[in-house]
């Protein structure tokens, strides 16, 4: 029995050792980067959010009221919930690697501090790209493009295999709360690291 007890502790100890290197140590390395709250995030509202209020005034007013900090936080949170519920993250990653020309395709290589905020609980880095990466998506496409795209992706991008999300729209084909929120989320992703237009035009 004595051997078995030792073996038990060794087994748990090895698990602890592995977990330390793979999970605890990265956390210790990164925990001093200040954590941004939702309020802090909402201090930098991307212009696309105000444009959204102008593009769909009736719908925006109905679901969110005025485009301000409070409505931005709500739209962002709802957008992320939709993104998770529809498993968008299973086909779209959210980090740019420093290899394979990704910097030229998507933009700035991802860095740890941009993920240290309340929107990254849980993180959505993703492990598969059926569609393109989204961490530099802000401003790449217009709000209208997104609205048309979510409704019927192949119509906007011929050959796309992305599903239709018809439940983001009401009976008249106007966006509902889900539609407005998910576009807000798309236009927020990477808004903190936007690049000049000449670079975007290369994509």
């Amino acid at each position, binding site marked *: 029995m004595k051997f078995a007890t030792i073996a038990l502790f060794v087994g748990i100890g090895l698990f602890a050792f592995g977990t330390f290197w793979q999970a605890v140590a*990265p956390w210790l390395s990164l925990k001093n980067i200040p954590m941004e709250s939702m309020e802090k995030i909402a201090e930098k509202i991307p212009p696309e959010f105000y444009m959204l209020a102008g593009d769909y005034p009736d719908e925006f007013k109905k679901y969110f009221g005025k485009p301000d900090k409070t409505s931005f936080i709500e739209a962002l949170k709802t957008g992320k919930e939709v993104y998770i519920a529809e498993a968008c993250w299973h086909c779209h990653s959210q980090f740019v690697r420093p290899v394979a020309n990704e910097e030229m395709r998507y933009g700035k290589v991802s860095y740890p501090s941009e993920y240290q905020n309340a929107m990254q609980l849980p993180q959505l880095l993703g492990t598969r790209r059926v*569609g393109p990466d989204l961490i530099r998506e802000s401003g790449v496409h217009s709000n209208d493009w997104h609205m048309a795209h979510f409704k019927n992706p192949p119509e906007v991008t011929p*050959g796309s295999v992305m599903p239709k999300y018809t439940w983001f729209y009401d009976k008249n084909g106007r966006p509902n709360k889900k539609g407005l929120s998910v576009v807000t989320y798309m236009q927020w992703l990477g808004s903190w690291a936007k690049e000049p237009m000449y670079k975007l035009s290369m994509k």
Partner: protein
Amino acid sequence: MTEGKSSIVNYSLVKFHIGFSMLYLLIVMLGGLLYSLQFIGLYPFAGIEFLSPGRIRMLHTNGAVYGFIINGFMAGLYWAVPRLTGYRVWNEKYIGWFLAIALQSAVLATAGGLLLGFAQAIEWGETPIFIDPAIVAWLIVTLPQFTVPIYKYAKEKPLYAANWYITAGLIWVIMVYIMGNYIPQFFVPGVAGAAITGTWIHDAVGLYVTPIGWGLMYYFVPVLLKKPIWSHSLSLLGFWGLAFFYPLQGVHHYLWSPIPMYAQYAAVLSTVVLELAVVTVIVNFLMTLRGNSEAMRTNIPIRWMFVGTINYAITCLQCAFHVLLTTQKVIHFTDWVVGHAHLIMYGTFGFWIMGFFAYLWPKVRKADVYSRALDEWAFWLVTIGTATMWVDLISAGLVQGFNWWGLSPFIDSVNFSVPFWAARTITGVMITVGVILYAYNMYMTGRKAPMPVLEAKAQTSGGAA
């Protein structure tokens, strides 16, 4: 391991878990097939919120693990642990049936939750957050169910490797599940959260599915071949190799990400070295087969198990190759990884479980197999389907990876993948048809069984050996 020990096995629980495992396997196969239709523009339920392809995808992966594999392992454990130890499991009448029904409730609640949009954004842990505590409780209760007889036996004699694996797997999975499903969700954000998520993804496979799968194989292979395992020292080497190297690999799911590089280097190195531990196990199984290779032709369960083992060797060599940071530049994010995942989760552990069932089902139903021809058809359809799917998807992965690197428009990589995805759907049809034949054969075998109701009563009431 003689027939005299059969009275300490609860046949009803084994039957129950096998039945549900097969039911979920059929649903998972159909779900995967349905999802694959989206990629070739033939998805039949477009525009229906609750059958959106993304949600079906989560149903496919979570059903495979929580429905098919866990039920399959429970059936195997309820058979193997009493026979390995000579003691009945901890408590059949209350705990056994409680666990059995609780597991099915959790699986069905998960399926409902995913389709209704309550998924959690943790890969392989998409079970809605409100179901996670139930699963943790389930895992904690499962531990004594099987470790009590192992503990009793350990006081008398040294333990066989199968018991080591089973005990370790049941202990590790509790810690792993709590870590993976709570910490990134509530406490650790962003990049560090990704490191923990990666550790969970990998440990779920490496510290639960792998040790339990290996443990059951260490029981079933010698029993079916009627000879001892080739090397006991090798089995212990494999065990400690797994224990040391497997928990060190989580971050290899996020290579070239902003996670600190020391964690990535550790993950890559330990993944390559782990192949040594895997090779000990594969060599051990194959050397046990030496001299009895005729069994591959005549014995269907042995054939499932050893083709699974060969698939295992292929996947693990593939893994040691594609985990290198250089290879990752091309194949990360592509269908290569999807092909790899299918060969390990279904081609290996799925094949092993189907081998266990092919052996156990006629035994617990006390009936001969209904049709040998159906078994052959099922085996060859599934085997050719799985192997072709693997080749097809890793090829698609190379096409996608080099397309992205070459900076051609993103939609090119989609257009070029469509033929591969069409081939994937065809292989999926082959596998699904094979599994349907396999399940039909089991159903007909069960129908031939003599008076199943009385049989079950005799098993639960009169337990004395």
